[in-house]
């Protein structure tokens, strides 16, 4: 008989859960297949596009729309049923009898799934970057004037921003998986938010501008409301320094807000405390 008091080591619990999530991801064929598709797409865009032949900055501009579309897709595929599956299997109930806290559980799921996501996203982009020296002509013809502005550092900044973007969308997907009570609800929420992120917020900004509801100065801030808009602003403002529509800090707060807000929603909705 154990007389030990309930455990309070959230960090150990979080690591245990994260490890299981990571092992689950690598054992899920559909997720592995989607990750491979993501990697191949990035490589294919790099190989087929003209950007890689021009240098790192042009490659970033080639990749931005694909990353904007595919990263949320991959993040949602990885996370949108994570908590829901545990709830439906009754594992959430059992974990609670082991005194696992909601922050430790949600944090563990987020850490484990995000590690897989970040590995795929960052790894694929690094492969793309590695192709630039191979694909670039020995003697650039038209980029001579631009060479000073082009640097692998710009691409690394882009890759880091893509990771932040991935974390934000993963957190949103995790919030969906915690808040949804059925697989149908989770799927509907995931598709709805994906559409909103990809086109909805941009369209809303245009509509608001067209109707005169907001002025032109407010549009960049509306765009920063969505993870996609914030990511795009950061890429153009920080990574390639072409001049973003929103200040980097605003966009960064936008992405950070999505991560924190979504994880808070996931913690609150994962389960209702008994006491």
């Amino acid at each position, binding site marked *: *008989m*154990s007389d*030990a*008091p*309930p*455990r309070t080591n959230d960090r*150990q*619990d979080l690591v*245990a859960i994260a490890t*299981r999530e990571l*092992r*689950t991801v690598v*054992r*899920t064929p559909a997720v592995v297949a989607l990750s491979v598709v993501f990697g191949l797409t990035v490589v294919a865009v790099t190989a087929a596009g003209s950007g890689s032949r021009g240098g790192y900055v042009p490659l970033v501009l080639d990749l931005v729309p694909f990353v904007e579309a595919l990263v949320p897709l991959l993040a949602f595929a990885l996370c949108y049923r994570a908590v829901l*599956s*545990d709830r*439906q*299997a*009754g*594992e959430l*109930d*059992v*974990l*609670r*009898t*082991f*005194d*696992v806290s909601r922050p430790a559980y949600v944090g563990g799921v987020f850490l484990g799934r995000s590690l897989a996501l970040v590995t795929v996203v960052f790894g694929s982009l690094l492969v793309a970057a590695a192709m630039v020296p191979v694909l670039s002509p020995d003697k650039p013809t038209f980029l001579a004037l631009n060479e000073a502005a082009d640097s692998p550092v710009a691409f690394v900044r882009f890759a880091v921003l893509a990771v932040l973007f991935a974390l934000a969308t993963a957190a949103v997907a995790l919030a969906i998986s915690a808040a949804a009570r059925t697989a149908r609800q989770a799927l509907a929420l995931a598709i709805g938010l994906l559409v909103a992120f990809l086109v909805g917020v941009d369209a809303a900004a245009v509509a608001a501008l067209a109707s005169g509801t907001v002025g032109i100065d407010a549009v960049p801030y509306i765009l920063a409301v969505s993870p996609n808009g914030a990511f795009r602003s950061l890429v153009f403002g920080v990574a390639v320094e072409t001049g973003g529509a929103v200040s980097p800090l605003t966009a960064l707060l936008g992405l950070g807000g999505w991560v924190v807000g979504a994880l808070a929603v996931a913690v609150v909705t994962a389960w*209702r*405390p*008994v*006491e």
Partner: protein
Amino acid sequence: MPDGETPANEATETVATAQPNDPATATTTGAPEANPTPGPDSSASHPAIEATGLSHAFGDVRVLEDVSLSVAPGEIVALVGPNGSGKSTLLRFLAKVRAPDEGTVTIGEAGETRVGYLPQQPGFRSGFSAEDTLQFYAQFVDDEIDVPDILDRVGLSGAANRRVEALSGGMTRLLGLGRALVGDPDALVLDEPASGLDPGMVERLFGIVSDLAADGTAIILSSHNLGPVERTADRVVVLDDGRFVADAPPREIVESAGAADLQTAFGTLVSTDGVDGR
């Protein structure tokens, strides 16, 4: 549900006191003024599980009506009742994975003890072996856990490396029991642990339960296997329409019903005409 109108509900007052050699410490009742009455051994130890005044409704459907129950260390309490009588709901409250609309549940003297819980339909993360699964849960307790020993106790040594999705229904339930045993909890809440098991495994399961109780673990389980329940349980609590209609050692229930065995007594105590789906 009308109060006290059915013959079954009249049996609520046929509460029996624990026998002197039983570890039972309390009785159950649907009436708030008749909350748990200490049995002969109650001064020896605090109840491992104590529930007081539990009431709950799903929408307009009342599933529990002011029920109170306590389980002493080393005691085996069997919760029986027809399908839809509220057993699983009550057990979730006792395991503290759901909160009732009204009432309190205390596990251990100061509510600090972990309760091992076997849900009615135990589920596991697919892709992992039975041993991996228990190793995962072993990380949440401070003690060193001998997972192979747990697998051996529940009869799954031969399936230690089998993936959980390849286990039969009965084996899945045994793995659920093994998971509940991780960390040697002082109290166990088992929702139909014998469901889907062959007769030999049912006997083995109740043997495990008896051994655990002999070591001081408080156990409350629901079951439709009334033969083993009659032989193993210290007390049988009969739940019908969200109320306790009997609470006594199995022999007393059988005798008070004038029946030959618990199965027959059960038929006289409860109505099994309808299922409310709780």
